[in-house]
C-alpha cells in the first residue's frame, strides 16, 4: 500500500513507535541530531531529552506527521522539536498530541523551533486532545526567512486541566504568518501568549483567536504584534462565554516601531442570548445541544 505520508514520527509516552522519512527528508531523534550537527546545538541551547529533528531538504509529495501520545498515568513528556524547511519548499505538517485516557494526570511540555527558509511555505496543523487532569505547556518559535509563509492552525478539541501555550513568530522581509488558535475550555484553565515580530518590511502577521470558556473555565489570552519594519499586523480575538462561573480575558497589544507599518486589532467576547437559546430550543434542541451547535459554529471547521 502506498504511504500517505512523506515522514512520520510516532511517540507513545517515551517510546518511539515509528519513525520513517522519504528520501530528501532527514528524521532523527533530537538527541541524535544534537550530537551530530553543530548548527543544531546552536539552535537548541540545552541538551534535549526527547523529540524529533526533521529536516526537509527536498519537496515532499505528501504531508509530514507527528503523533505524540500520553498513555500511562503521571507520564511526563519533555519534548524538544526542531523542524527545518529548506528554501522554496511547500510542506504540510500534521501534528497530533493527545492522551489515551481522560484521567492520566499526564504532563506534556514541548518546546519547538521551526525554521522556514527563504520562499518556503509551511502549513502547520496541530490538534490537541487531552484528559481532564492533564497539564500541557507547548512553547513554539517560528522563524520565517525572507518571503517565507506560515499558516498555523492550533485546535484543542478536548482541553487539559491546564494549558499554557506560547507561540512566537519572527518574520523577515516579505514573510507572512497567519496564526489561528482555537480552543474550547471546559472546566480548565487556559492561557495563551502569542507574539508576532514583523522584523522586515512588507512582512504580514495575522492572529485569529477563537476561544470558548465553559464550565468554570478561566481563559486568558495575550496577543501581540510588533512592527519593526514597514509591515502589516492584525489581531482578531473573539471569545464566547458560556456559563456564569467562567471568564475570558483578552489582552491584545500592537506595538508600532515603524511609521509606515499598518497595525490594527479587534476583540470581542459574546454569549448566547436567552432569545437565541429559546429559539433553537423551539426547534427541538436541548440546552446542551444548542450550546454545542453554537460553540461548534463559533470555533468553525478550521481543521
Amino acid at each position, binding site marked *: 500500500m502506498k504511504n500517505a505520508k512523506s515522514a512520520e514520527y510516532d511517540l507513545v509516552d517515551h517510546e518511539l513507535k515509528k519513525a520513517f522519512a522519504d528520501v530528501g527528508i532527514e528524521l532523527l531523534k533530537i538527541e541524535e541530531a544534537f550530537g551530530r550537527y553543530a548548527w543544531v546545538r546552536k539552535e537548541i541551547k540545552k541538551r534535549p531529552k526527547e523529540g524529533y529533528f526533521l529536516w526537509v531538504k527536498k519537496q515532499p509529495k505528501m504531508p509530514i506527521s507527528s503523533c505524540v501520545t500520553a498513555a500511562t498515568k503521571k507520564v511526563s513528556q519533555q519534548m524538544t522539536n526542531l523542524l527545518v524547511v529548506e528554501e522554496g519548499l511547500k510542506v504540510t505538517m500534521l501534528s497530533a498530541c493527545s492522551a489515551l485516557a481522560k484521567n492520566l494526570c499526564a504532563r506534556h511540555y514541548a518546546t519547538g523551533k521551526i525554521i522556514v527558509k527563504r520562499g518556503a511555505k509551511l502549513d502547520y496543523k496541530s490538534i490537541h486532545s487531552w484528559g481532564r487532569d492533564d497539564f500541557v505547556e507547548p512553547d513554539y518559535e517560528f522563524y520565517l526567512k525572507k518571503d517565507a509563509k506560515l499558516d498555523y492552525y492550533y485546535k484543542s478539541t478536548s482541553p487539559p486541566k491546564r494549558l499554557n501555550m506560547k507561540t512566537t513568530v519572527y518574520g523577515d522581509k516579505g514573510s507572512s504568518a497567519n496564526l489561528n488558535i482555537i480552543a474550547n475550555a471546559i472546566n480548565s484553565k487556559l492561557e495563551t501568549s502569542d507574539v508576532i515580530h514583523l522584523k522586515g518590511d512588507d512582512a504580514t502577521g495575522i492572529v485569529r483567536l477563537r476561544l470558548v470558556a465553559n464550565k468554570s473555565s478561566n481563559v486568558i489570552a495575550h496577543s501581540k504584534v510588533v512592527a519593526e519594519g514597514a509591515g502589516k499586523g492584525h489581531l482578531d480575538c473573539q471569545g464566547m462565554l458560556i456559563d456564569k462561573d467562567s471568564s475570558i480575558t483578552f489582552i491584545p497589544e500592537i506595538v508600532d516601531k515603524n511609521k509606515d507599518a499598518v497595525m490594527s486589532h479587534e476583540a470581542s467576547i*459574546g454569549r448566547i*442570548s*436567552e*432569545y*437565541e437559546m*429559546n*429559539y*433553537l*430550543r*423551539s*426547534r*427541538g*434542541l*436541548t440546552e446542551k*445541544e444548542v450550546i454545542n*451547535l*453554537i460553540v461548534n*459554529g*463559533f470555533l*468553525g471547521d478550521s481543521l
Partner: protein
Amino acid sequence: MQNHAKKVNTTLSIKDLHVSVDDKEVLRGVDLDIGKGEVHALLGPNASGKSTLAYAIMGIPEYKVTKGRIYLNKKDLTKLPPEGRAKTGIALAFQNPPVVKNVKLGDLLNRISNTGLDDGISGEHLLKRELNKGLSGGEKKLSELMQVFSLKPKLIIFDELDSGLDIEKVKTLTSYSKQMLNKENASALVITHNGEILRFLKPEKIHVMINGKIICTSDDWKTVWRTIKRYGYEKCKKCRVRSS
C-alpha cells in the same frame, strides 16, 4: 357564534389559559380548540396578547402559565420545555427570528429535520447563510417556513407571517404553507393583524383577541374581517357574530 357542525378530532386544546410575563398577567383565560387539519386565524390589535399566546403554547420559559392547560392530541404539554413541545409536534414560525451567529441554516436543518428538506420552495440559496443574518424580510420568513416544515409538526403557529412583506410575497409563502399543511394534514394557528393573508389562507375559523382574551370566534372570516376593517376592533365587542 356558529357551531362547527362537522365533528373533527381536536389537535390543539387550550383550557382557561392564564399567562404572566414578568409577573404581569397578559393572557386572562383563553380557551381555544383547533381540529386536525384546520387552519385558524387569530386577529387582534397590537399588545392584545396574540404573540404571548404563541410563545406560551411553544413553552418559552419567560411566558409563565399561572392557570389552565394546553393539550396536543389530548397530551398535556403545559409543563414540557420548548424542545419537548417541538418533539411532541408543535412548531412556531417566529415573527422576529434572532440572528444566530456562526450557525448556518443548512446545518440547523440537518440537525432538526425529521425527513430531510422539502423541495417545494426554493430556499437553497439560504442554506449556507448564517441564521437570519443579513436576510431580507421575505428571506427570514422563508427560513422560518423551511425550519418549521422540516420538523413535520402536527400544529404550526405562524406569528405574523405576513408582516413586512409585499402582497406577492405573502401570496407565495401562504400558498406554500397551505400546500404543506394539506400534505401533512397539519393544523395551523395564524396570528395576524392584517387581513390580506386571510384571502389566501381561507381559515376554517377566525378568533379575535382583545386584552388577553378571545372575545370572538366565528366560522365566517370574511364577515369578521370586513367588520374589523370598517369599524376597528372595538366593534368586535358588540358584534352580532361574537361568541358567548
